[in-house]
């Protein structure tokens, strides 16, 4: 009888084994979904493994500071999306979301063109995990200004 487990312990071992198998299966699934489940391509991925030119894809990254330019027609904009390693020029015609600005995250929906640039049909703003009160930001800019004044 020494080898026999109490039913309670038998159930515990069974449930733990089943749970371990389940977690392993879920991890394997998540691992294989690693690329497919991503919502967008990073510029590096788009440059390294370019999708077919007319295929609709999403490109996500940071809007490079100083790269945002408005075309003479007033509604077409051009900017560069970068991830620190690669840069992709993007063209978009339309209304941008409120949070879209230079130095901030963006997800562009559209397709890659033959010349390597990206033509976007839609822009989504991606904000980061930082939450800063407006007053505090003004305070820090004032402080920054004071510092700039002091060093002059």
């Amino acid at each position, binding site marked *: 009888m020494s080898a026999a487990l109490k039913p309670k312990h038998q159930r515990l071992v069974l449930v733990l084994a089943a749970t371990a198998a389940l977690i392993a299966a879920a991890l394997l699934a998540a691992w294989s979904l690693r690329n497919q489940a991503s*919502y967008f391509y990073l510029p590096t991925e788009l440059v390294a493994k370019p999708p077919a030119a007319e295929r609709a894809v999403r490109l*996500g990254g940071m809007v490079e500071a100083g790269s945002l330019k408005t075309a003479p027609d007033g509604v077409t904009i051009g900017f560069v999306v970068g991830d620190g390693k690669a840069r992709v020029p993007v063209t978009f015609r339309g209304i941008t979301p409120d949070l879209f600005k230079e130095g901030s995250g963006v997800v562009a929906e559209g397709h890659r063109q033959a010349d390597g640039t990206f033509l976007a049909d*839609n822009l*989504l703003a991606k904000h*980061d*995990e930082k939450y800063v009160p407006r007053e505090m930001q003004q305070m820090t800019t004032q402080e920054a200004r004071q510092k700039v004044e002091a060093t002059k």
Partner: protein
Amino acid sequence: MHGYANPARFLRLARLLTAPLLIAGAAVTAIVLLWGLTGAPAEQLQGETVRILFIHVPAAWLGMGGWSMIALASLSELVWRHPLAGIAARAAAVPGAVFALICLVTGSIWGRPAWGAWWVWDGRLTSMLILFFLYCGYIALADAEARSGQGGGRIAAIFGLVGAVNIPIIHYSVIWWQSLHQPPSLGMSMLSGNAPMAAPFLLGLLAATFGFSLLFGGVVLARMRTILANQQAEARLRRRAMELADA
């Protein structure tokens, strides 16, 4: 825990706690949400829309917490056959589903001004929607099982345990996969003194979560009492019917 296997002892405690939890929860939630609407600062980029944080994030956490409770109760039901475990799991399912739904709805309302889209199929939003569907499935399954009187709640318990794999997927969806939803603001980075979330937002968020949790606890206890009362009433009816048949 087995001290409370006796439903009478559990009911005495539950009767004592239900009303205070609900009242305190409603008071804390009302105060924090009112402060969030009028007293909290505007965010530097998002402006006034950041105020929805105080309802969206606690609802998301409790939506996930509700399923964690279902999973733990299911484990206790399957392994130790605790007599209240299945009842606790069923009681947590409806408030958990409501919180998951609140999270989805407020997130959608927030997404329109912040991202420029009501809905996107990224990892975080999709896995949260799956959690809501899992809740719906669990509620239907557990109710059907309880009504049929067969299975003893074991099928629902297995479903509750299996569905728990979605909880870490929701959490890591913004870390494993590129997503439009931003990565978590709370975590180890707070210990380094370089917290991504400024103090007023963080404290308001924690206070709102406390209030939501009290409400959740009160609703779970109230629902457990209801389920136990229904079981007692049914047992009494069955006994009466048997007595009448004998007579």
